């Protein structure tokens, strides 16, 4: 089959599922970064050396896994985590040994004075200065994000007939500020200066989705990722969640959908207690991507007729389990969460040290179903 036709057929599987229609079979989407290096037999330092190199290695890894209808994201750089967590990231081959996984190094890079500074400067100006002066300040010139070869992610995957869904990523002001202030610092701010925090959030939010969406559309990607982890309702009291988390998450999703894109709701941690609120989001235009902490079976009951569900083969199962256990769980998901509105995927990334045979088992189960 021609790769163009293959690309279109695979994309249709995913888009049909996202629109809550019954696809010809359950699509399986791959989401991984560090796993690519292990699967392809490359060093972690090689993997993070540039986005272009990461794409090459991710493609090598897909061949090892044996298939998959689409990639959640098609490239990777630790610098993207710096933007999501407002933090430095320790990387293999630099601060870490060559085969260690990169890690966000959360320190109090933002101070309480910065809340007012964000409003005075505007978020784009503040962010540019913050990243240059406090995050990337000690990076050698050659390693700065703008100087690393990016390649053409979408084209590289299209050449093997694999669509890439995500053309950009956004997260809420809560995630950004809790990274920059550190979790403890941010929490004390929520309790001691809540109005100041809220004012800063209102100032930040309008600037978050538009650029990512424009870039995604221009490059031909169908979706933008809207991520939440510390904003999970298991982490926050209802009062804090209702004021500082949900309104901003909802706003970002609505902006993405208004731009004609699918919103992939990347929900780490446990969102079970507030699943009902997701019915406020545009129906048939979002993919709720769960990591194994949220009860996907409850999600099916509460929002399964409103949003597509994606997931949630747990990282621990992919690492510690055996292929038969993986297959059993995947069949259960296909049976009970599908057939309409379901995409099989790992819960968040396939972990770096997942058994290759387990990743294969996940893919094979969808292809054989």
């Amino acid at each position, binding site marked *: 089959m021609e790769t163009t036709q293959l690309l279109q057929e695979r994309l249709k599987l995913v888009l049909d599922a996202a629109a809550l229609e019954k696809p010809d079979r359950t699509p399986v989407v791959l989401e991984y970064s560090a796993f690519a290096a292990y699967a392809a037999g490359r060093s972690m330092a090689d993997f993070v050396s540039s986005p272009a190199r990461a794409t090459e290695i991710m493609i090598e890894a897909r061949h090892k896994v044996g298939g998959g209808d689409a990639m959640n994201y098609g490239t990777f750089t630790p610098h993207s985590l710096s933007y999501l967590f407002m933090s430095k990231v320790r990387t293999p081959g630099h601060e870490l040994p060559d085969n260690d*996984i990169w890690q966000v190094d*959360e320190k109090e890079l933002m101070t309480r004075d910065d809340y007012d500074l964000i409003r005075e400067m505007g978020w784009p100006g503040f962010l540019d200065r913050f990243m240059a002066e406090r995050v990337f300040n000690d990076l050698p010139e050659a390693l700065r994000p703008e100087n690393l070869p990016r390649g053409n992610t979408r084209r590289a995957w299209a050449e093997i007939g694999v669509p890439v869904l995500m053309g950009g990523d956004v997260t809420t002001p809560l995630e950004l500020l809790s990274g920059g202030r550190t979790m403890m610092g941010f*929490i*004390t701010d929520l*309790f001691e200066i809540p109005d100041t925090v809220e004012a800063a959030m209102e100032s930040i939010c309008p600037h978050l989705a538009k650029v990512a969406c424009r870039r995604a559309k221009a490059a031909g990607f169908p979706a933008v990722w809207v991520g939440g982890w510390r904003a999970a309702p*298991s982490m926050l*009291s209802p009062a804090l969640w209702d004021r500082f988390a949900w309104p901003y998450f909802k706003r970002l999703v609505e902006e993405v959908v208004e731009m004609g894109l699918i919103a992939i709701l990347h929900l780490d941690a446990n969102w079970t207690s507030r699943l009902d609120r997701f019915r406020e989001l545009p129906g048939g235009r979002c993919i709720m991507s769960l990591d194994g902490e949220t009860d996907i079976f409850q999600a099916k009951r509460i929002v399964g007729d409103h949003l597509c569900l994606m997931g949630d083969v747990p990282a*621990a199962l992919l690492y510690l389990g055996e292929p038969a256990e993986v297959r059993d769980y995947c069949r259960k998901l296909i049976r009970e969460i599908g057939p309409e509105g379901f995409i099989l995927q790992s819960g968040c990334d396939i*972990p*770096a040290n997942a058994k290759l045979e387990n990743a294969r088992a996940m893919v094979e189960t969808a292809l054989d179903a």
Partner: protein
Amino acid sequence: MSIQDIFNAVISYDRLGIAALTEKEITAGTSVQRILNQGLIAPMDEVGRKFSEGVLFMPEMMMAGQTMKEAMKVLKPHLVGKVASPAGTVVIATVKGDLHDIGKNLVALMLEGGGFTVHDLGVDVPTEKLVEEARRTQADIVALSALLTTTMPAMAETTAALKTAPREVRVIVGGAPVTEAFAQKIGADGYAENGPKAVELARTLLGPR
């Protein structure tokens, strides 16, 4: 001024005001043991209970813990030689190769709030350092945290080293990818999924003191 004011300060997260309240209570002659037990450990136990019931969440536990810590800064110099044995001594760390510490910090706060003496070694801590610190502090328990599947092997290695060290020490483990089954597999003495459960587990393992 009374111990109830200190108790209330913890419950209301008065992080900035509790130090003064504690100073005044000490100056007034109240025993440091009473201040510790009734003014700090008691409200932390209540916070832990409410967390387990789903009434309070992680931010409230962190605020209570931070508020308690401010009081402890004032209380600590007066505690040496004047209180009964603590609930136990715990060494806590995130294992080698792992930088995550939010959960570990919260567990440390709750253990301290529960009356344990806590030695927090931070993150990315190698096995040898943990074994040595357990020996140096005569720890009753070593608490290990890992947030990555790739650092769970380090947790297994450290547990094995601690369980074969000359001096007996209990090992408890936790962290997002860690499970009860994994804890049993690696020979740990227990698994706790959050701060209050870690306190409960530590008290169960060590018994009344």
